[in-house]
């Protein structure tokens, strides 16, 4: 394992702990099977097929792995939701639709280390009893799809996929499915519909919980690319050993994708909860741009609630409640949730004082208005109205009342839709208004109160304050 060298300028930061990204930017590493086999590739799969499937699930549970796709749901637990009495085929789907703004990790795995994903998937399939699995790749990643297809062909030829894997009785067919070019295809039930060849309208739950009524109305496990890669490492290390990485209930490593107003944005694989948000900015990313002050952070992809730079948070440390500032928030699931946001997909967006808050919110709202699938009335109409109103604020054509209207639209979406997009699109507005009400109101014009507006405005040019 030693002696891994990286392309110069792309060396991992010293605070990183690379498990999943071990081979990313590695010197002389290519996505071929040969390279993967050189240091222990597919050894875990060979081991897995000699184990009881349930034993693998138990290891994943013991490891405390939580999904890296957004919701942070315990992976091992999810696998046990397949009804024990099931007689239908079981499917596994790798969610490689990576489209949450601010998130850019899965693509590197697929581009540079595809066999790691295949091995993780094969082990997961063995554990859940799936004989057919799909990788649902975002349409905008044509290379990833091609590379994965090549990798699947290679692995099949070498007996790591296909019939009688590694000399066992385990058969697995794996297919790459190219996505349909919409954010909603990443929502697991929308993804399933899309995979079935339909419009990716998310399904109502109940009754369509994927583990029970998923693809072709059969039990289906949907996991994120990164989540599935972890499975391989859990098997290698043992669940208990893996759980020692990170912090309790927030185990292992995860890849943070940092973007926005920092000196050195990029991806960093760290132990969960072992770095703080301040350290992410200062150490990993080399600090803010010269002369800038931090204004806000969106810590887990664009749908995560925004955190204000000068906010104070209450966190439990042991048995004690402590008050901390933004820079001291540990980057883990529970702490970020306790601070009123979420770890989400690992996309950390740093916003400094050069950005106008109304513009940032409008940028996010535009994305969601564009991506709402249109099925639910509150989301379809509401996401558009949120954009229309924030458009107006940015253009300086809004009245102060509009901020309240904006908030009420958001409140009527959250929790009132078929899929979690409803939350994803309303949380930004709700949190921006709660935390930056003054800034937003400052961009409105008192004299417009009560004046009927023709609302079609174009975005005002200036998005910078100064």
């Amino acid at each position, binding site marked *: 394992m030693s002696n891994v060298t990286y392309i110069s300028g792309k060396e991992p930061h010293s605070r990183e702990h690379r498990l999943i990204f071990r081979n990313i930017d590695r010197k002389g590493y290519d996505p071929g099977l040969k390279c993967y086999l050189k240091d222990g590739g597919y050894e875990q799969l060979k081991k897995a097929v000699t184990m009881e499937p349930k034993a693998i699930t138990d290891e994943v549970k013991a490891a405390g792995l939580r999904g890296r796709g957004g919701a942070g749901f315990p992976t091992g637990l999810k696998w046990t939701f397949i009804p024990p009495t099931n007689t239908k085929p079981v499917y596994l789907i790798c969610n490689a639709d990576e489209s949450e703004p601010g998130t850019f990790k899965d693509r590197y795995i697929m581009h540079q280390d595809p066999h790691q994903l295949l091995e993780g998937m094969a082990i997961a399939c063995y554990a859940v009893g799936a004989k057919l699995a799909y990788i649902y790749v975002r349409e905008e990643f044509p290379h990833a799809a091609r590379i994965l297809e090549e990798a699947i062909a290679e692995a099949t030829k070498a007996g790591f996929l296909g019939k009688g894997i590694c000399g066992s009785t385990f058969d697995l067919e794996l297919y790459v499915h190219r996505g349909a070019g919409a954010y909603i295809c990443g929502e697991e039930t929308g993804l399933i519909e899309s995979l079935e060849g339909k419009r990716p309208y998310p399904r109502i739950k109940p009754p369509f919980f994927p583990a029970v009524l998923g693809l072709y109305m059969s039990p289906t496990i949907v996991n994120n690319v990164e989540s599935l890669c972890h499975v391989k490492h859990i098997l290698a290390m043992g669940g208990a050993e893996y759980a020692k990485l990170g912090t309790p209930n927030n185990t292992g490593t995860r890849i943070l994708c940092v973007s926005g107003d920092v000196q050195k944005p990029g991806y960093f694989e760290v132990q969960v909860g072992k770095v703080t948000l301040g350290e992410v900015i200062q150490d990993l990313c080399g600090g803010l741009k010269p002369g800038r002050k931090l204004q806000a952070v969106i810590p887990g992809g664009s749908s995560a609630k925004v955190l204000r730079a000068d906010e104070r948070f209450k966190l439990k440390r042991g048995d004690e409640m402590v008050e901390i500032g933004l820079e001291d928030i540990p980057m883990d699931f529970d702490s970020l949730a306790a601070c009123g946001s979420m770890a989400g997909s690992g996309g950390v967006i740093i916003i400094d004082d050069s950005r106008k808050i109304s513009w940032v919110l409008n940028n996010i709202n535009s994305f969601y*208005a564009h*991506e709402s699938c*249109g099925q639910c*009335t509150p989301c379809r109409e509401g996401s558009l109205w949120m954009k229309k109103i924030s458009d107006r604020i940015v253009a300086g054509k809004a009245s102060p009342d509009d901020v309240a209207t904006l908030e009420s639209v958001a409140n009527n979406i959250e929790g*009132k839709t078929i899929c979690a997009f409803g939350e994803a699109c309303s949380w930004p507005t709700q949190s921006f208004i709660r935390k930056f009400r003054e800034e937003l109101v400052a961009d409105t014009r008192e004299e417009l109160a009560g004046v009927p507006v023709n*609302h079609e405005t174009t975005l005002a040019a200036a998005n910078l304050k100064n």
Partner: protein
Amino acid sequence: MVTLNPTTHAYLDGQLLAFQPGDTILKFVDRHKGRGFVPTLCDAPQLDPYGACRVCSVEVALKEDGPRRVVASCHTPLSAGMHVHTQTQKVQKLRRNIVELVLTDHPLDCLTCEVNGNCELQTVAAKVGIRKVRYPEGKNHLNRQKDLSHPYMTSDLSKCINCSRCVRACDEVQGQFVLSMHGRGFDARIIKGFDTSFEDSECVSCGACSQACPTSAISDIFQSKAIVATEKTRTICTYCGVGCNLDVATKNNEVLSIQAPLDAEVNFAHTCLKGRYAFRFYNHPDRLRKPLIRTNGHFEEVTWEQAYAHIVENLTRIRAEYGPDSIAGISSARCTNEENYLMQKFIRAVIGTNNIDCCARVCHSPTAFGMQQSFGTGAATNSVEDLQHTQCILVIGANPTEGHPVTGAKIKQRAMKGVPLIVIDPREIEIVKYAKHHLQLRPGTNVALLNMFAYFILEGGMVDRDFVGSRCENWSEFEAGLRSLDLDQIEEVTGVPREKVRAAATEYAESPASMSFHGLGVTEHSMGAKTVMLIANLAMMTGNIGRPGVGVNPLRGQNNVQGAADMGCQPHQGAGYMRVNDPAMQRLYQDFYGMPVSGEIGLKIPEMFEAARNGRLKALWLMGEDVVQTDPNSEAVKESMNALDFLVVQEIFMTETAKFANVILPAASFLEKSGTFTNAERRVQRVNAAVPPLEGTKPDGQIICEIMQHMGYPQADYTADGVLEEISRVVPFFKGATWEGLGDNGKQWPVKEGNVGTPIMHLDSFKRGLGKFHFFAWQESQEVLEHGLEFPYILTTGRLLEHYNCGTMTRRTGNADIVVEDVVVINPADAAKKGVTGGDWVRLFSARGEVRLRSRISEEVKPGVIYTTFHFPEHLVNNITSDVHDSDTLCPEYKVVAIDFERVGSGDEPAGLPIREKGRAHTLPV
């Protein structure tokens, strides 16, 4: 005080109430508070829960003061002890906000909208209390173009609220997948096909989307959702044996539109375009409005009394001169049970002969006969509802999506849900797309194929020995027959590889519940009745009888084929299937009618025609039948009509047959009469007059009653309930049926005392005691043997969704704009041989005559097989059909005609008849 039953009760706004297993919260609320108590927009009873509009949101808690959650009631299952709060401030505000958002993109011109007063959006907006829309006007979809391209379907998508109900109706109810949502979010909009108009889409005009749409965004030319109508009458469709219930909206005695009732067990908010839209024939200018008597070669209008007097005089004369057997009647499977009953009574009790038959002769007489031989009853063993329970569907010689559209759609839906479907048919019909097995046999080889099918069940050790041993007889003879089969020969004649048959047979035999449907592709053959018995064999040998989801189920062509036979419109059996030549039964009828009746079996329709030609039959009474156009070998039929001394025709239009009549009596259409129809699943349903008979016309039943009275028989005046009461006293399986008791959804016979219906027959034993196996070796049709060498192609006929038989009715409606001609379908290989390209005029000729039709080239038929429909009698397809009949029942063999063909010109040349352009007035060449 109700106490909490942990499994069956929940709290609704604080009140403890019972729910049913599987209830969603909405169903629970609807049941106790009525639909609309909790507002809904995207939910519709006929569709699966969707959960998209969220207007139905309620708050729920697991404990009385536990934390509350907002959920969509339409798809959230209710759990025992749950507290449902439907009227909290929170949900009321939410509902208001949602509707407010919807209204920001909805034209606010309710007063001019066609559905004003019956719009779900309007109702919901009023209910949730929208006062003002807070959002300033912005980008919207208010100036979308209307789509008025189609003869029936319309759309005005500026009114669309994106609830997807239309899309779901098209997918879940009809299974046509015409509509979809295009684009995302605000850009989402309904499209037809690949974003075309209704006219250019694959829409089959079933109207399910229009009925499901909560606004006027999708509608139809009749504006069926408008509230202009003052009356609504529930009745039964007259176009096929499915027996769809219809809600007919009328005003000032005029039919405005038709919708499908939501509580109809047969068709739950569904119909095909015939039932829903093809009604405008009923007051068409062509309707006959005065009795006509032929004098000196032309018709003269007379009064009813004059017509009756003329008829009485002639019938009395003929009976006196030639005896009662020189008179015959042909009843109609289009007419009600009551009318059929009266017709046979008239012929039997008043005229005194058993020369009574009906058009079932030319379609399902082999079914009635064959199933009687096997089971003792000539009717479907199960219900269409059983499709929900079956695990394998076998369709033989039927094209349900065209011929029995609502049942066809259900079969399609089940197949799409994964129920294996086996289709035995010479054509690649629509349901073949959904089928797991298609045995594409050569027309005329059903018997051979089904024998092989049975053989593989036997050979595979899949026979249900218990069932066969305890409930059937004659097994060993049947088994010996199967063992003697020559599989090589069968493979050769049917053209179906044996392995395919084996696979299908295994599927059918191994499934825990297999259900078969058959149609005219089984019966209209020289071995039709025998084929029916072979289908019965399959069911018996696999124990697929007497349980849910199994059985032998004929798909009846006309709306009351079942009823016409039940009522005794057959020469050998009287009302209730008692044999007329059994002296005990003869006495029974005699006592019941109070008149002497004949003990001699009467003439079947083809025998009547023959008797007319050779002078033995002098007078014929036809009720609603156009035999010249619809019976095979038209020239011979015309000759028979000419030979008659006296012909009475009861009709609604001047038909080819009526032109031969001495007296024409103008009858009323189904919309103008009351009675009962019995559908293909033995369901006796009430037909209610929606409008009074057109001036000058009379319902058929009334006409028969009056003529009976004029002939001196003390028949009471016609009332639907009165005649039904009379029937219930003579037909054993109607014993418990009363007009009131039949209720909205009818009852399946046998109707026992107290109006108890029978959804599944032969539960513990067969009507005839033991079920009887029959073995028949296949024989080539006489038609092919005689003419096959000279005319090497086999023509088989069928029908289209859009038209009904010879089109007398449907061609006087907008359906005529959808399908304008019969075409002939030719396999590409055969077309190439004869130099025919698509659209060319082709001349088909048989030993009897010729027709010219335009061609369509398709692989839906195999080489050697030619297919056409017969809805446009001016094309005279029946000029070439054969004289061969089923040997047991004389049902004509429409499905096998030896022909040859040649190209006579390109499609542009007027080589044949002028083809009507779309959009012409719906007047027929007569």
